[in-house]
């Protein structure tokens, strides 16, 4: 391994400080005894208790989880289907346009996505609420899922599916028995990604929700406008924890598969 020079150490420290110092401060102050956010008055976990007794927060959390679960499931199905078409269908008319359009929501400003969805829902005369947020989150999360799944499918040996057909599977069976189990890690990490994206979205949810449905980020945002409280800090810390667990699990699932395969291949080399 290369030795760490002072330059490397400094840039690493500064980089991580820049990324994580704000969050660290938030987490520290969530354990603050004092009601005043910026004055340290000793360690306490009482604000966590407050959060768990606040029904407005709990309702918002429930809405958020419902939305995140439903939209990530829908996004996973649609995103996986899109990925299969992109990787498998070869060259069809309009393939380039289609592949460009799938990734467009990733770079599209959220305000525009949110606004256009809002206009669509109004023109369709849909009541805005949990359902519309789910639809909105599905549209932008599915492109992330399709990116994750298609990167796995590219390295997927298509003759595996042909072998399944050759051995008597119908195309649907071949997908269920061979393709899906092999790309499952990518599909699962796509789902987790979609789940966390939905969990912390504020802009699109604000545009597409109605009075009946308030997500947690929306609730936090509106309470912060009345002043930051330690309670919000505690709540945010919980959200950081949930998102971190989701992202870390997703990357671990992928990584563990790679490592296990390498180890088993190494073992096979020894046997041969």
């Amino acid at each position: 391994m290369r030795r760490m020079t002072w330059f490397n150490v400094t840039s690493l420290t500064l980089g991580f400080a820049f990324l994580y110092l704000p969050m660290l401060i938030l987490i520290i102050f969530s354990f603050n005894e004092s009601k005043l956010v910026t004055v340290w008055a000793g360690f306490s976990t009482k604000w966590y208790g407050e959060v768990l007794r606040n029904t407005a927060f709990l309702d918002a959390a429930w809405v958020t989880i419902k939305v995140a679960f439903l939209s990530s499931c829908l996004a996973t199905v649609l995103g996986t289907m899109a990925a299969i078409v992109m990787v498998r269908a070869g060259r069809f008319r309009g393939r380039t346009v289609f592949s460009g359009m799938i990734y467009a929501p990733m770079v599209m400003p959220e305000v525009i996505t949110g606004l256009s969805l809002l206009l669509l829902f109004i023109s369709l005369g849909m009541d805005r609420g949990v359902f519309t947020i789910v639809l909105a989150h599905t549209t932008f999360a599915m492109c992330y899922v399709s990116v994750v799944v298609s990167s796995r499918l590219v390295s997927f040996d298509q003759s595996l599916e042909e072998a399944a057909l050759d051995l008597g599977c119908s195309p649907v069976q071949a997908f269920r028995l061979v393709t899906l189990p092999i790309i499952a890690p990518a599909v699962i990490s796509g789902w987790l990604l979609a789940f966390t994206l939905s969990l912390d979205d504020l802009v699109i949810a604000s545009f597409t929700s109605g009075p009946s449905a308030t997500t947690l980020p929306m609730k936090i945002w509106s309470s912060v406008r009345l002043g930051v409280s330690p309670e919000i800090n505690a709540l945010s810390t919980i959200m950081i924890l949930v998102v971190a667990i989701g992202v870390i699990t997703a990357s671990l699932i992928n990584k563990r598969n790679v490592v296990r395969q390498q180890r088993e291949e190494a073992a096979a080399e020894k046997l041969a």
Partner: protein
Amino acid sequence: MALDVFAPWDDPNAKPLIQFQNVTKRFGDFTAIDDLTVDIFEKEFFALLGPSGCGKTTMMRMLAGFETPTEGKILLAGQDIGAVPPNKRAVNMMFQSYALFPHLSIWENIAFGLKRDKMPKDQIGERVEEMLRLTRLEKFARRKPHQISGGQRQRVALARSLAKAPKLLLLDEPLGALDKKLRQETQFELMDIQETTGTTFVIVTHDQEEAMTVASRVAVMDHGKIIQVSTPDVIYEAPNSTYVADFIGDVNLISGKADPQGDKLHMHWAEGQPAVVGSPLDGATKGQDVHYAIRPEKVSISAEKPENAANAIQGEVHDIAYLGNISTYHVQLPGGQIIKAQSANNRRISRRAFTWEDKVWLSWTDTAGVFLER
């Protein structure tokens, strides 16, 4: 004594298992298979041989059902299989990449096709055990594909494709990923298994030695057409074109003008050189362009001009390749052409009779080579 030779292709009453009838396959503007007609018989070990891009893989994929012919018909046991999807065909394929299912154990890989057929559990177990014994994989049944070696994976792929007892087994470059020694061993194993199971095998390969070793008949392909179909010895000794002669083994090719004389054909090929004499070519007229193909091992090399040799040319040793069992001499003729002559090294560490720049005589009989029209 009549020897019972397996040669259904010579029997006019034999029913072919597979018939390609004027099959053409186009991908856009590219013609992969060009108006091809061929019969393959039951219990044959049929090799499709050719350089990459000659259409041999397309032919195989049409048999498996992954491609459909643009024109023409493919019959399996007399029935048109053009519209039958791959999962409904009594044809199985062994893939070049083996395509073993990485998430299933060896046992489950072999049982995969049987389970799709809804075979009773105990029968599946029996059949899988039988396949494991046939391919000597009993010890590896519980392993996953990436926990075994390349040669073992190859045998799993074979066992899996044979498990359903197909009428026809397709093998796509089955030994391509193995090293030379293992490949040779496996070739003989394949032949044994083919004989034991009595299955018809169609193998695709670009390795001419492999095709010659395993096949009952070889089809040499080029640009979507079959140039010649015949037994390995006919392909080697009586190629029908310079393409086949050059593709299979080592060959010397000389071009010249035909000159039929009695029951022999003479070919004038260079000023001041004696004509090459050989068996006649049907329909060759005086002055026609013809080619003469002769294998290096049929050319003798000597210091003195041999008496009574039908063909004898003097030249100079240009290069010597010592291959252990044989030596190949590259002899340059006065016109600059190089003729290869092989001699067997049947004595151990004997002194070589010739060395670089020696004047030598090359000679061969009048039946050693063949005249070719193209």
